[in-house]
């Protein structure tokens, strides 16, 4: 997904670049190996595909991706060509002459990187021999029934073979860096190392196999991290061989990385190695030329959502749409991993708070989580039809009215207002109004659910009683399908929908990275995340006072479920108390964080990992100049005393806030200063920041 952002003049003036010496890329070859290169299976595809551009920018012709060959993928995504590098061609030919099939081309994504793809099926006749090889170097065997594991062994064997042929020709120059992603590629790393192939190796895991299983199994994961007998847990879950492949790759890699601090903690316990570098996932951020364009997009898309709400809540539109906030949660339907349980409970409490405070704000909450359905339900479609009918009625009456008015004016007279509408017109309008009467509550879901009685979201809605009643200040719309711009109900694509909402809520329990809140941020929409999600950890580390920037981080790691629930409720409640202007300011700040999530900055963590790997594998040639790398220090600027507190915090004393109130001046220069104080750039503290840090310290004293 390519996301857009506008260029605002308060965008911080470029994060300082990392000062580490640039690698002599012309004397190096970089390979990145992953099962999802040109092959979309899960989330790693997004990471690899979006990152390609910045890597090609840095490495040019010396960068290659490696993956499995599938004819369909190759035909639709790859432009075949000859390898530009003779050594690579010779290595490929060597495999081909031994009865394997290897393909080369440019992957038609942004940056068009070179890809080397290995045909797994065509090499399957070697499987028994390669199983023997793996067994003899590692004592790991693979069950016959696990196709994916066997495929990964074939892939890994081909990759290791290729590297052997390649490095035999290259000798010492250029040196090779091989970066492997996930356990499916890890076998290639283990085999390469066992054959003492001279290259620098990096292994990145995007989540641990066992962690995912344990969380899905409802283990109290984070409180028992150090108590699991991991061999036993993996064995009992019949993933022991996969776990061994993953852990072997981790153990053999020169540098081990993962995507977030929280996954680093997980990896430390589930794989027994502390990651050397955390390499967060980025996005490709597109800049708009128009200033604050994203704010305009928010209001146009918000209008579309309001239209939907008008239809969905027909007959119950006794709340002010101008004072209605749209919250949403989106993602795979993993009820507790994604924190939908916590969210629903907090919404129930928020409903109570808004009612007792007689707040005029209404919150409409969208759950965008695909489940098994049997198409839209009649009531939802009817709602939109009725809205359309009212619109048509208004249009036709307006037209008649206009015509009579016009004719009257032509005659030189002001028409008699009591006669300008005829009896018929009133009949039409009354009939249309009668149609809006309804005897049921507006439905909480837009679809006919296949598992209506056991569905976890619906069951919990029933339990907490949020049925979209008139008195409820929190209304719920569960849309159990991905959004589409061709939907008859809510015709918007995901990006448009996010832009139209006010707050994304993602209180996840297990979320190694978490693209959803990241996407919100880049679109300038505040979001709630947790300190158990990679994104939340990253933001917590890089911003002080994240709430002011529209990043609300719920503590689910060190607090009880009930406390987390209260915290989430409080976040949402204070969000509801913000004035329109405060929300606009907050969105500006949120959007300014986009640069933190841009691959152009986050790609530098990968650079660092590569440098580190070279220094470990070829220590004589590559030295690390910056040994005390500030990455692990978790440094954070304190909230400077000169900076106004977050808008959410400032309204506690004044709950009744009018939109006109202009108590928080928005000054571009001050905002710039605020960013300098609050946002920690990845990697370095430039001279300017260094100076500011001292200054703020003095202020504090």
């Amino acid at each position: 997904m390519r996301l857009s952002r506008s260029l605002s003049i308060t965008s911080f003036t470029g994060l300082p670049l990392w000062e580490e010496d640039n690698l002599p890329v012309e004397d190096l070859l970089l390979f990145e190996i992953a099962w999802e290169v040109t092959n979309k299976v899960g989330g790693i595809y997004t990471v690899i595909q979006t990152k390609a551009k910045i890597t090609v920018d840095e490495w040019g012709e010396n960068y290659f991706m490696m993956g499995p060959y599938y004819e369909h993928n190759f035909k639709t995504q790859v432009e075949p060509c000859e390898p530009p590098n003779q050594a690579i061609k010779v290595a490929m030919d060597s495999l081909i002459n031994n009865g394997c099939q290897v393909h080369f081309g440019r992957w038609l994504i942004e940056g068009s990187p070179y890809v080397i793809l290995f045909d797994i099926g065509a090499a399957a006749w070697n499987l028994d021999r390669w199983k023997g090889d793996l067994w003899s170097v590692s004592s790991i065997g693979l069950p016959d029934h696990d196709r994916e594991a066997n495929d990964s062994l074939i892939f890994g064997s081909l990759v290791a073979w290729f590297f052997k042929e390649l490095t035999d020709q290259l000798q010492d120059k250029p040196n090779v860096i091989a970066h492997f992603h996930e356990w499916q590629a890890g076998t290639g790393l283990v085999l390469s190392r066992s054959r003492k192939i001279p290259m620098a190796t990096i292994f990145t895991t995007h989540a641990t196999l066992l962690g995912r299983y344990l969380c899905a199994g409802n283990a109290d994961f984070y409180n028992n991290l150090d108590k699991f007998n991991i061999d036993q847990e993996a064995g009992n879950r019949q993933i022991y061989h996969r776990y061994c492949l993953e852990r072997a790759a981790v153990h053999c890699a020169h540098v081990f990385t993962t995507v977030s601090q929280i996954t680093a903690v997980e990896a430390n316990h589930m794989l027994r190695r502390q990651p050397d570098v955390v390499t967060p996932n980025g996005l490709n951020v597109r800049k708009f030329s128009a200033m604050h364009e994203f704010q305009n997009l928010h209001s146009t898309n918000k209008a579309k959502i309001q239209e939907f709400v008008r239809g969905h809540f027909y007959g119950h539109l006794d709340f002010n749409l101008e004072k209605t906030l749209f919250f949403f949660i989106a993602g795979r339907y993993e009820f507790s991993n994604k924190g939908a349980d916590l969210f629903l409970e907090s919404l129930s409490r928020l409903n109570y708070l808004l009612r007792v405070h007689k707040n005029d704000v209404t919150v409409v909450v969208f759950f965008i989580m695909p489940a098994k359905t049997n198409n839209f339900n009649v009531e939802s479609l009817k709602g939109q039809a009725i809205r359309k009918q009212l619109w048509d009625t208004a249009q036709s009456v307006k037209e008649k009215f206009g015509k009579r008015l016009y004719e009257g004016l032509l005659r030189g007279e002001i028409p008699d207002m009591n006669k300008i509408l005829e009896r018929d017109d009133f009949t039409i309008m009354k009939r249309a109004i009668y149609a809006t009467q309804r005897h049921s509550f507006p439905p909480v879901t837009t679809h006919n659910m296949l598992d209506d009685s056991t569905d976890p979201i619906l069951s919990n809605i029933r339990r907490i009683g949020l049925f979209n009643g008139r008195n409820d200040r929190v209304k719920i719309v569960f849309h159990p399908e991905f959004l589409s711009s061709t939907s008859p109900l809510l015709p918007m694509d995901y990006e448009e929908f996010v832009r139209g909402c006010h707050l994304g809520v993602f209180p996840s329990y297990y979320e190694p990275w978490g693209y959803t809140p990241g996407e919100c941020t880049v679109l300038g929409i505040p979001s709630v995340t947790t300190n158990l999600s990679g994104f939340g950890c990253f933001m917590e580390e890089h911003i002080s006072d994240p709430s002011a920037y529209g990043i609300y981080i719920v503590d689910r790691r060190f607090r009880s479920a009930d406390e987390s629930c209260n915290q989430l409720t409080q976040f949402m409640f204070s969000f509801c108390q913000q004035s329109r202007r405060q929300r606009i300011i907050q969105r500006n700040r949120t959007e300014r964080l986009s640069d933190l999530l841009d691959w152009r900055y986050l790609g530098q963590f990968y650079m660092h990992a590569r440098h580190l790997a070279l220094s470990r594998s070829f220590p004589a040639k590559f030295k690390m100049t910056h040994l005390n790398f500030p990455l692990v220090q978790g440094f954070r600027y304190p909230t400077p005393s000169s900076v106004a507190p977050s808008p959410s915090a400032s309204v506690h004393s004044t709950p009744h806030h009018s939109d006109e109130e202009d108590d928080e001046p928005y000054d571009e220069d001050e905002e710039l200063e605020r960013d300098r104080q609050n946002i920690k750039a990845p990697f370095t503290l430039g001279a300017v920041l260094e100076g500011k840090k001292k200054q703020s310290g003095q202020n504090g004293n």
Partner: protein
Amino acid sequence: MTMDHEQAFVTLATNDSYAKGAMVLGKSLRNHKTSKKLVVLIGPHVSDQSSSVLHKIYDEVKLVDVMDSGDTAHLAMMKRPDLGVTFTKLHCWTLTHYSKCVFMDADTLVLSNIDELFDREELSAAPDPGWPDCFNSGVFVFRPSNETYGKLLQYCTVHGSFDGGDQGVLNGFFCDWSTTDITKHLPFIYNMSSIAIYTYLPAFKQYGANAKVVHFLGQRKPWSYTYDPKQRRVRGEIQDATPHPSFLVDWWILYSSEVVPLLLRAYGDLPFHSGCEEGVAQHALSSMTSEERKQKWEQGQADYMGMDSFDNIQKKLDVFLK
């Protein structure tokens, strides 16, 4: 203290082997802080040493010698000599100084506090995994009563047992269990037998962690294995209907750490075989060829708690990493 209202867990040990099971069961109940009394019925073949250890763990150790009782049981016994152990077990209904009891076989192990079982009525039991319309008599709630006891003996002599054991008798006697009152169906987690792990693995994965009582059904009982306390490994466990390895190890951890010391003290200088062996593991490892081990992996049976542990794999990897 009103004797009338006392409640107790009751088990049965007919020989020294089952006595070991009873000791572990008693310890597991105590460790999970039961507030109830513990009673063990022992047969005449239990040694003095075992009996003395049982005395340390149980509140009441009651010798039951059916042949010697001279009562109705003796008469019943003479008519049905094949049901010897069954008569001993039925004897639990004579514990009338307790108002309510939970009987547990000596080959069960308690994983958490189960005092809530006393909220149930006679005869509450969990379904038998082999024929779920029958209850499994390894764990059941009953009310001691001489009247019931007499009727049970009467039933035995007339109908016998369709399976040759107490479970057949009890299912015959309480024949409306499967149809009448659902509150008398204990959840399976109160008597989770090992067989379920093999017959319905997905359910075990889903619910196994909730198990409160594991029942080591089958020919091989936990005490008939040997155990290496250093490696925390049970040997010879690759058997068809063996319980889940971790439960077996749980049993051995409790046995070797809390029961063996008591037994050693009781036996003093007399020879005693605890079943704990050390240092024999290396033989087992070398006795299997590399090819056989690889085949085990390929059948999905890596010995992950033993020689195929990741520690050993890592040692192998370190050979080329150095």
